[in-house]
């Protein structure tokens, strides 16, 4: 179980352009941080760097288990975090249920937990539809189901609520609050404020 993420002196570059440098961020169990900044400031890149998909130019990203014991980054990433962004990885020609179940099982959940997430996110009427027939908000709910169905402590979310309607934003706010209350951590790139108390981190200021 991951208990903390410590980012020290992080610099990220895309091509020749440095996005930001010297970013420090500590996130501990139960805390949420909202990444703010203009378009192209590097919020998404920061999330991908924490997930290990981008190599930082400088600085370190470390994960800690209970009692501050360091976790091996590769294992922490493979078992301890969810990354959910604009590219949801849902195959348009398969049904919502096939894709949802794959994403849940791939990240360590079970069919029963997938069913529970379907109930919670109000997806049961959509399950038989092909993904290409879903609206942007419905697709987002399908791709968020794995957060609920396969418990992992660190959630890296990229504009998670942008396509959601008001009712589902409220439900998602409750889900975030429960995740934090259960000792989880949240790092989210947002333009609208999160529906939960969160520290603001300015990226690329």
């Amino acid at each position, binding site marked *: 179980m991951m208990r903390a993420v410590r980012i020290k002196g992080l610099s990220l570059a895309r091509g020749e352009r440095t996005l930001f440098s010297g970013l420090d961020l500590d996130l501990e169990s139960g805390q949420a941080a909202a990444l703010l900044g203009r378009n192209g400031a590097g919020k998404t890149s920061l999330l991908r760097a924490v997930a290990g998909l*981008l190599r930082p130019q400088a600085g370190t990203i470390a994960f800690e288990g209970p009692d501050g014991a360091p976790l091996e980054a590769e294992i922490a990433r493979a078992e301890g975090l969810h*990354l959910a962004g*604009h590219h949801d990885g849902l*195959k*348009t020609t398969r049904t919502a249920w*096939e894709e949802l179940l*794959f994403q849940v099982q*791939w990240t360590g959940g079970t069919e029963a937990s997938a069913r529970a997430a379907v109930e919670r996110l109000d997806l049961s009427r959509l399950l038989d539809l092909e993904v290409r027939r879903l609206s942007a908000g419905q697709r987002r709910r399908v791709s968020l189901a794995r957060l609920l169905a396969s418990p992992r402590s660190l959630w890296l979310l990229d504009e998670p609520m942008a396509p959601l309607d008001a009712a589902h934003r409220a439900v998602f706010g409750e889900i975030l609050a429960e995740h934090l209350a259960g000792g989880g951590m949240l790092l989210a790139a947002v333009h609208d404020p999160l529906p939960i108390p969160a520290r603001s981190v300015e990226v690329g200021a």
Partner: protein
Amino acid sequence: MRAFAILLRRELALAWGRGGGPLLALAFYACVVTLLPLAAGRAPERLAALAPGIAWLALALSALLSLERLFERDFEDGALDLLALGPVPLEAVAVAKCLAHWLAAGAPLALAAPIAAVALGASPSIAPLLSVCALAGGLAFSFLGGLGASLALGSRRGGLLVAVIVLPLYAPPVIFGAGALDSLAGGLPWTGGLLFLLAYSAAAVALSPLAMAAACRNALD
């Protein structure tokens, strides 16, 4: 292991669902084989001599068909992020993808290859060896093809690039396989060619996943 099975099942479902998978490859194979008599003339003895060779050529080309999208789709829609953050390393993800490609396209083609060769006039006695060669060669085609597909990730006109990267790597299995079949037809010892083919396939299966995983990581960065 469970995660690997889950991924393999999904890749197979995607391969079957996308334009019929094996059916499309088989249809393409049938077209190429049918074109040969039209192009080379219909003298039976000449066709019979060409039959095993053309069976190989058609196999190699058919294996290229669906390769371009092997990693590209997952790269574009974000699924590769999810696969990279999964419970098994990217090397195993690459193995699952290539294995599914082989099961969906390579294996059915290997079963069709002897039928095509015999239809063109080759001696039925080569059919068993041709099946074995096509199965092993197809495995090499899928894994080397995956290597080309991962290296071409993110490039425009990826399909052509994959073919240019991959076709030279297809030369050794074609040489070994066609050599073994030639020897068998000529009554010479043929096991040497087959063993070289099997060794080449085994090396491709063992080594290319490492390169594919590195290429995917590079593309995601």
